[in-house]
């Protein structure tokens, strides 16, 4: 018997998840929920999926094994809690919620109910970032002293963005919607920071939310981190995320395509020689069964479905891990106030 999956939200991410899930073997999207009757009518007519305008009704009636929540961030908590209380495995788009306490309570609930719980921080499924994490954990860079994470792209390049991403009340803004990806990636690579020493949220074009986030982190072992994000940068065709990590034995610079590693004299590690080394996504990325828009989007869904089948409640990007990211987001908000 195949897995029955429901989706709440049929925007860019919802449709992308729909296509990926539906292409997986023994899995089908059987129900979708949205407030847009236009999209629902198209999906109902052409894809033949059951449609709902109320999440309660869908979760109660559609007999789902798993649910994907891809709605504006401010709604995640309500939908996620309702689904978990009814025993549905859950994949929620990032960020998990807009408050660490809500994220923490969802994480607790998911563990109590033994439901698979995952958040869409897809960078953790990119081969270059995974290899960077492996090197850091194995001690190839020695003791980490500094980490710098940045993301630039063109989400808001005019004073006219009218989507939920430009509304604070719905969880929009560069911090929750964009910087959270970088924070999560930095957490993935070196663990979460202990403190946020200072932060600045700047408005460039938006009315209601920030378009750029800068912050300074400090870590348990004395390391320092810098976060720099700006979603009003039209020189990038799409979101471009780069992390640099310095350690006592060397340093690495990593983005979604390329991993550059420098190792100091006498510190060659496995296939990495002293001096500069380059590895590319072409050799680091594991293939996926169905490709839509980057292996990471498929790989995270494959991991989610695999965890459901294996009865493993904590895959990569669990709610507990996403809670740590929401906690740092909250510290940045407080530090910038």
């Amino acid at each position: 018997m195949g897995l029955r999956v429901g989706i709440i939200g049929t925007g860019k991410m919802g449709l992308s998840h729909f296509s990926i899930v539906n292409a997986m073997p023994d899995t089908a999207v059987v129900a979708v929920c949205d407030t847009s009757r236009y999209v629902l009518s198209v999906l109902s007519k052409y894809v033949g999926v059951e449609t709902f305008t109320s999440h309660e009704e869908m979760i109660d009636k559609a007999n789902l094994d798993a649910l994907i929540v891809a709605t504006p961030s401010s709604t995640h908590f309500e939908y996620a809690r309702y689904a978990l209380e009814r025993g549905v495995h859950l994949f929620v788009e990032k960020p998990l919620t807009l408050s660490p306490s809500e994220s923490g309570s969802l994480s607790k609930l998911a563990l109590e109910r033994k439901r698979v719980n995952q958040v869409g921080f897809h960078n953790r499924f990119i081969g270059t970032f995974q290899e960077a994490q492996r090197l850091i954990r194995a001690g190839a860079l020695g003791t980490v002293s500094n980490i710098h994470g940045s993301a630039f792209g063109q989400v808001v390049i005019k004073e006219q963005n009218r989507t939920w991403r430009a509304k604070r009340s719905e969880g929009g803004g560069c911090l929750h919607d964009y910087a959270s990806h970088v924070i999560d990636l930095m957490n993935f690579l070196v663990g979460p920071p202990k403190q946020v020493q200072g932060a600045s949220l700047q408005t460039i074009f938006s009315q209601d939310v920030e378009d750029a986030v800068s912050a300074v982190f400090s870590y348990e072992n004395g390391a320092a981190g810098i976060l720099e994000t700006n979603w009003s940068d039209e020189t990038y065709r799409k979101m471009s995320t780069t992390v640099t990590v310095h350690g006592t034995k060397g340093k690495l610079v990593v983005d979604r395509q390329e991993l550059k590693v420098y190792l100091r004299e006498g510190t060659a590690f496995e296939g990495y020689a002293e001096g500069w080394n380059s590895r590319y996504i072409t050799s680091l990325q594991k293939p996926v069964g169905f490709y839509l828009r980057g292996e990471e989007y498929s790989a995270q869904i494959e991991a989610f479905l695999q965890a459901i089948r294996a009865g493993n409640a904590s895959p990569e990007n669990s709610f507990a891990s996403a809670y740590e990211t929401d906690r740092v987001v909250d510290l940045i908000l407080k530090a910038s106030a």
Partner: protein
Amino acid sequence: MATIDPILFGDNQFFGVNHMSEEKARQQLMKFKDTAAIVEVLDQAFDMGIRTFMCTTHDRIGEICDHMRAHRERYKDFVYFPCMPYAHKYANSVSQVGVMETIQRFSTGGVVSTVLRGAVGTFNRDIYALMKLLVDSEMKRFQGLNTPVIFVQNVVTDLLLGLKLYPVFAEFHSYLKERYDAEAGFITMNLPLLLDALAAVGVENPIVCANINKIGFRMSGGVDAYRDVLQTRKCRAIAMSVLASGAIPPKEAIDWVCGLPGVQSIVFGASSPGNIRQTQELIQRAWAR
């Protein structure tokens, strides 16, 4: 039936698309900032006997088309394979103004023409009408040029493939024939799945374009599945990303693809006459064997 040359010229290098390095992509964007620099490389490829330009419907393609129309005699044998849509344009617009306004923004003439064409009544529920509007909007800048094959980009092909909206492929195919006297082409990262889908809706001997390279980079289903469908299914296959963004040395990469039964054409991009000639010669030599 459209003739497809064995060697086609691609455009990623002109628009800052590089799957290996963001730095290299940026350098290329700077190098090809002026349309004249793009035209210069196209001229070099043309003078070496490459006739077909497989080009994304990027905003700047309009300027290139203007140049070609202004020098009709020089480019009379030039062939264009438009690849639509330029997805980032839509994706960025959806992030900025939402789905509905994006549709209005990019359909030909916006709402006015939609009303005039009587599509508005069925607009809400007819995705075929919407598909036709978007195709017309993307094809406007190719007016008067020779476009015998028109491709749908992989992000859209594969989205529809996952949604199992296979009838859209058939509608696209027949609309292009009827309106543009052109054949449909389908770019995909999931060739085995796509060929099944096209067969299911009766698109016979389809023109398909997919990553085909020795290391299996972005070949969903794996190299063996690709080898199998290329040999056993009737299709006109164009190989792209043959060098896997530079991960495979050129000669090794090209010899492997050219030795694969079922591959009819190769599309590649290059920014200098030396690279164009080298790749062209490697392909010609491999296929002569």
